[in-house]
């Protein structure tokens, strides 16, 4: 969803005008816009009359919030011990090459955000990638780009 002041205000209006609402509003920004936009944090600071620095501190603290627009799909490449031994690095590199994207960033077309993560708890299927909620086990660097191409 595009970031508009009207939408920002609608989200801010869902909660009480108190400091306790900050995190809830930031989470809603993340859900609706797929990131926490600077305009949103500014507006929130103004409405609640709290320093922008406090809101920015929270925005950068939580892993669940992203200050950069995130892709439609999240690709998690497991870098845990088992996956690492089974060549997780080559898989991550294949994705980086195939979609011209660096780890922990988003593709130009905003379709994928690629993250390297630690053990996702499916070591028996190592190496593993997780696209949104789908687990793809025994991933191969030669196939992984084709798998991702199915996600639009």
């Amino acid at each position: 969803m595009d970031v508009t002041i009207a939408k920002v205000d609608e989200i801010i209006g869902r909660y009480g005008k108190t400091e306790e609402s900050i995190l809830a509003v930031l989470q809603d920004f993340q859900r609706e816009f797929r990131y926490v936009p600077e305009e949103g944090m500014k507006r929130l600071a103004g409405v609640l009359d709290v320093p922008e620095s406090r809101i920015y501190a929270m925005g950068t603290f939580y892993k669940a919030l992203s200050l950069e627009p995130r892709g439609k799909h999240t690709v998690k490449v497991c870098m845990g011990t088992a996956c690492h031994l089974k060549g997780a690095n080559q898989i991550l590199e294949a994705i980086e090459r195939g979609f011209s994207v660096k780890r922990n960033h988003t593709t130009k077309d905003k379709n994928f955000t690629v993250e390297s993560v630690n053990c996702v708890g499916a070591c028996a299927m190592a190496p593993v990638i997780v696209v949104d909620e789908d687990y793809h086990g025994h991933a191969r660097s030669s196939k992984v780009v084709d798998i991702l191409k199915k996600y639009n």
Partner: protein
Amino acid sequence: MKKVKIVINGKTVEGVQDQSVLSLARENGMYIPSLCYNAEVQSSGGSCRVCLVEVHQGKSMRVVTSCNYPVREGIEVKTDTEFVRKIRKGVLELLLCRAPESSEIKELAARDGITEPRFFTDGPDVHLKNCIACSLCTQVCEDVVGVSAISMVNRGREKQPAAPYMKASNACIGCGACAYACPTGAIEMTDTPDARTIWGKTFEMQKCSVCSTPFIPKEQAEWIIKTTGKDRAFFEKCPTHR
């Protein structure tokens, strides 16, 4: 103010209940290293952990940060035992990993015999160079200056003070209090005859109408006028010509 007696390094000294062990030790001429504590800043201390001391009470002993440990009747403090030195050595080794180029950290570490940390060190792109993430600067900005222009952002290794969105701050008044307070001189502030630059923002300086020496950023003077009601004429002359 209740007076109490405690023992520090075998010497009986008198202090005020609840003052910090660190301040009482210093009043009595005893050295305890410190970085993140500033007596003028209520919320400061407890973060760098270089001020560790042993506190004995009856049979129990605890290692505590002396900058925020309250003086109470009957405690016995030891500031420089083998055990304290050993733990502080570990603390300084980690601080040296975080700020390997800071002369303040290097000096403290060297006193405890560390010149090279055994662990990997943070490069200049991980966080503000020389910053040990103690939060003193942001506490000064919020609690003493009252503008909250900067805050601690990110977390873990990347934790550091910054202005919102990593851009020049709207709220900053250019007072420089954060830079003066920083124990490792990590905050860059440059003064030229006309302007001061800090946190990516440049401030025009107010010049003295007598000697034309620049002495305060105009925005800071405006802030003081606005918050204290001080007379504008007060800021026409520098402190020496008032």
